């Protein structure tokens, strides 16, 4: 009797028999996670200075780097709008930066199609720092030298947090691809 392949019936994402991916999860989870991350200003934390990492942007980067096809190129506009409505930035700042990030990553990928932990982290680090710097410039706050000093702890925290966010996105990706739909 021939041996059945152990992954023939089940794999990481659930039973393969009579089950399929749910399109709501497949397309919804990335969007929902980024939108939820842009609700950070509604956390019960009243910060005296900018300290919290730009979570929405980091989730966007993590999804884009982990699953290149999952967000369309135009996703920067709706996601940036969500982020702008609550973040305190003038409306348009995140729309612009999110859109430019997605275009830049797409072009970067054409040139450097390889992947790896360190490459992704360095790309993310550069983009996060640019994002924080440009957000500060666009914020309509009166900027002085002190302000740029204050960016340093926020940027460092963001860089250290990024691999953790990628981990969270990987867990969400498993949730996204669960076979929950019953095929009739």
């Amino acid at each position, binding site marked *: 009797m021939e041996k059945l392949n152990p992954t023939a019936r089940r794999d990481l994402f659930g039973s393969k028999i009579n089950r399929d991916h749910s399109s709501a999860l497949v397309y919804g989870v990335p969007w929902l996670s980024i939108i939820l991350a842009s609700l950070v200003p509604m956390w019960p934390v009243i910060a005296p200075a900018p300290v919290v990492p730009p979570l929405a942007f980091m989730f966007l980067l993590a999804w884009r780097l982990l699953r290149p096809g999952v967000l369309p190129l135009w996703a920067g506009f709706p996601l940036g709008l969500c982020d702008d409505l609550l973040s305190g930035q003038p409306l348009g700042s995140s729309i612009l930066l999110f859109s430019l990030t997605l275009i830049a990553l797409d072009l970067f990928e054409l040139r450097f199609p390889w992947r790896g932990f360190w490459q992704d982290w360095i790309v993310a680090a550069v983009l996060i720092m640019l994002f924080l710097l440009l957000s*500060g410039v666009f914020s309509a706050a*009166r900027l002085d030298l002190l*302000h740029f000093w204050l960016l340093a702890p926020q940027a460092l925290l963001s860089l250290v947090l990024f691999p953790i966010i990628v981990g969270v996105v990987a867990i969400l990706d498993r949730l996204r691809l669960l076979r929950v739909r019953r095929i009739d």
Partner: protein
Amino acid sequence: MAPPAAQRSGTNRRAQFGVFAGYLLASAGAALGALLLIVSLVRPEAFAGLRTMASDVTASVGEAGAAGRVGTSNFFDAIAGYYEAGSKNAQMKEEIAIARVKLAEARALEQENEQLKAVLGLAQDEREPVAIARLIGSTSVSARRFAYLSAGRADGVKVGMPVTSPMGLVGRVLEVGRTSSRVLLLTDSESIVPVRRATDNVVAFAEGRADGSLRLRLISLGINPLEIGDVFVTSGAGGMFRPGVAVAMVTELNDDGAIARLLSNPAATDVVLVEPVWQPEAVAMLERPPSGPTEEGIEEVAAELPDPPASPPLPPSPSPTGSAAPDE
């Protein structure tokens, strides 16, 4: 590991068109974003309606969490506060028992105080707060310092109203939604409050700094009379903030003033009061074009005054406004 070659369209016309359309849409999004950014930098109040709608929708989520944030001072303390909730609870119960007794004593004293004041014939100039609300959250990512308040138009909150806590001034209302509003905190770099030293009449402007402290700029030049530990209160100039509300304490001296620490740290503030604008007529006058009072302006102000004045009100004094630019 190379990624899946999803975007390499090859000779497939349809795929080529899809990639092209994707770039086109994304560039259009970026251009629209840039346009919106320019509009909102030129006119900061332009998208207030959209923003307040969003904060109305999400405020109920934030409000639930805000109840747990008491007596904390920064981001990490706020998170730690949730872990220590149990032991703090027991301690607080004990404190409440003591506080109840003290409260009863205070009530008695208050009554006595009122009686004595009545004997002396002193008029009480206490104003009823417009609303009592919680600070839900703040823009902790951005360089701007806004907070969200759990009261809005439905509670009678209007733009420009001062927000205070028992410890002192917190900020002023900037945008009002139906059930939530946005507060410009004192530490925002666009916030300017006219203040004076509590003990005498050394007047200054308190400007927000990026790191959560205030910069006091003295109005009169000369030898810096400030000392570390001086407490500053609102002066009432500009008519927006009621005079005598505590603002900040000097921690560091510099050439033209001092760096001061905020007395009512918004991070440690649970419940805040929204107060009416102290002298709405003065604020209305100051927000007019700088050419001076117009005929209709005088009529409008006269209509707003409680009693019809015998003579037209005085032209606005050249004293500074109680705020940043009115359209901020």
